[in-house]
């Protein structure tokens, strides 16, 4: 992965700069939260900002470089800072080269190589994998931002029916990747969460339930077995889009990496998403994701079944937008040894308002309540059930 990024940076510094574009943004928050200790600080809270981390906070400092080479090659590098005390304070979230040849006879191919997001979220349609509907992502796509990154190559093929006088476009996508072997550990050890923080490629997150540790690495190749995903989409005009994705990191669950003190987590899931938009500014997004992650230590077999669903409705009124989302989630731990596995169930409501003053300034406010019952909280001496609330004001400047 470092070699890919080094190559990308070398290309970036090449003298023949055809068409480069730098995006910078500063996102500051004023936060009030009463949540349990956050998972970033080794707790089992579900919020990004807990009651010890509210007030004025850095939301995200972002710098992105978009560089074209020749006609059809495009390099995208996205770096962000999410918290000043992070292991790598300013680090990459995505870095990839995209090949976009011209469509031929109604067929279009695209190839992406590097580190990037799989086409799974209908929420994240703004630059930097940002959610323009609400500040915080759904439980499903929060997890995607935390643990999943395609560090490899992806090919997509689309039939552009709407450009041939038809009502539909159809697409297929397939990718092969590495460095995703720890994927699954967060949803297993902490359960689901709802926030906007994306794990950076060389960053670390907290290690829930084990007390102060140096932090957990989430992008690592452990078993030298590549993972894959395959997906399809069907789009009706520009109104309705349906997406399916099957992800499988094909990790070897018996392999242990002493370097990061962790197993390779065999993780697979299916995801189905739907987005529906109307001419008068309404958007409806719904997504379902369910899968299993497992490890096989010497002590026995363990797996976690996890699933989540959300529905988001949003209404744009000129530069104003209001959105409301409901999330439901659960995990179910099975283990062959004693003590038996633990479970979590939960749901969340998120409501928000945003105002895009112009291309540079935007303001948003979001209120969220997450109710969850996490049996594992007993290990921290906490009650299993919690109602966590968070109010965020966001001011963002982009240039």
């Amino acid at each position, binding site marked *: 992965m470092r070699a890919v990024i080094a190559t990308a940076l070398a290309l970036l510094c090449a003298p023949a700069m*055809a*068409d480069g*574009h730098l995006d910078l943004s500063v996102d500051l928050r004023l936060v009030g939260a009463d949540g349990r200790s956050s998972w970033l600080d080794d707790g089992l809270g579900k919020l990004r900002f807990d009651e010890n981390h509210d007030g004025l906070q850095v939301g995200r400092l972002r710098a992105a470089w978009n560089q*074209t080479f*020749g*006609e*059809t090659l495009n390099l995208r590098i996205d770096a962000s800072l999410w918290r000043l005390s992070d292991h790598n304070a300013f680090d990459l979230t995505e870095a990839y080269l995209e090949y*976009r040849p*011209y*469509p*031929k*006879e*109604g067929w279009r191919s695209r190839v992406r190589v590097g580190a990037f*997001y799989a*086409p799974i*979220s209908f929420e*994240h*349609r*703004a*630059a930097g*994998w*940002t959610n*323009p509907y609400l500040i915080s992502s759904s439980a499903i796509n929060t997890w995607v931002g935390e643990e999943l990154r395609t560090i490899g190559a992806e090919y997509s093929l689309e039939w*552009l029916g*709407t*450009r*041939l*006088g038809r*009502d539909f476009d159809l697409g297929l996508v397939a990718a092969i990747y590495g460095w995703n072997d720890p994927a699954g550990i967060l949803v297993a050890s902490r359960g689901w969460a709802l926030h906007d923080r994306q794990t950076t490629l060389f960053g670390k997150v907290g290690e829930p339930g084990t007390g102060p540790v140096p932090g957990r690495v989430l992008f690592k190749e452990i078993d030298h077995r590549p993972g894959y995903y395959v997906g399809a989409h069907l789009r009706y*005009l*520009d*109104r309705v889009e349906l997406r399916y994705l099957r992800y499988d990191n094909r990790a070897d669950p018996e392999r242990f990496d002493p370097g990061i003190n962790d197993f390779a987590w065999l993780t697979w899931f299916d995801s189905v998403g739907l987005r529906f*938009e109307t*001419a008068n500014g309404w958007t409806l997004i719904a997504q379902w994701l369910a899968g299993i992650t497992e490890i096989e230590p010497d002590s026995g077999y363990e797996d976690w079944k996890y699933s989540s669903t959300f529905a988001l409705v949003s209404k744009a009124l000129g530069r104003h937008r209001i959105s409301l989302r409901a999330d439901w989630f659960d995990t179910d731990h099975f283990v062959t040894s004693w003590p038996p596995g633990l479970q979590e169930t939960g749901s969340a409501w998120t409501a928000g308002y945003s105002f*895009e003053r112009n*291309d540079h300034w935007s303001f948003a406010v979001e209120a969220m309540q997450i109710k969850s019952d996490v049996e594992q909280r007993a290990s921290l001496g906490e009650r299993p059930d919690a109602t966590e609330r968070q109010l965020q004001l966001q001011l963002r400047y*982009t240039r």
Partner: protein
Amino acid sequence: MLALAAWAGGAGAAALVVKVAKPDGRPVAGAVVLLHGPPGSKSSAPATFIVDQVNQTFTPDLIVIPVGSTVTFPNSDSVSHQVYSFSPTKRFQLPLYRGTPYPPVTFANPGIVTLGCNIHDDMIAYLVVTDAEWFGRTAQDGSWTASNLPAGDFRIEVWHPRMRESTDVIERPLKLEAALSGRLDVQLTRSLRPEPLGVKPRSWSDY
């Protein structure tokens, strides 16, 4: 569905009013009407046209041009565009650009050309290249009028980018008599596709 009515018109020349309607009878504005004259009619003279790109939208998003015409595609946006067509009528590509770096493109064959931008998937526009002597688009009331027509056998084509008829173009023969005004009613059998949702915010770039 087509219906032709004729009545006495001005001296000598014939005139034709074409009215295009939806299945429910409401007018279809912006439908392209191409009227091919009797043998010996000539095409309209080629001309030069401009299809600009403003705020990630082709402006205008549909033009009808005589065969042999040239079109310039300036980019007035601050972001680059990459214009292409894979329509058999005219395949071409204008690699990534801003401003007006390329010479005009010549459209030598009749047919429909669908334009896109390889960077911004929502951008779409149409060029209708025609060898018809008379052509135009229907007004808000769904009508298009041609006058000073010779008598004889005509062929009429009606097309709309959001049309869903069983054929790509509605095509009918038509006979006009001298000094008569004709009216042709074209009623679509299926509803039009809904209008595109419009320009997305600049920072959106679907993942």
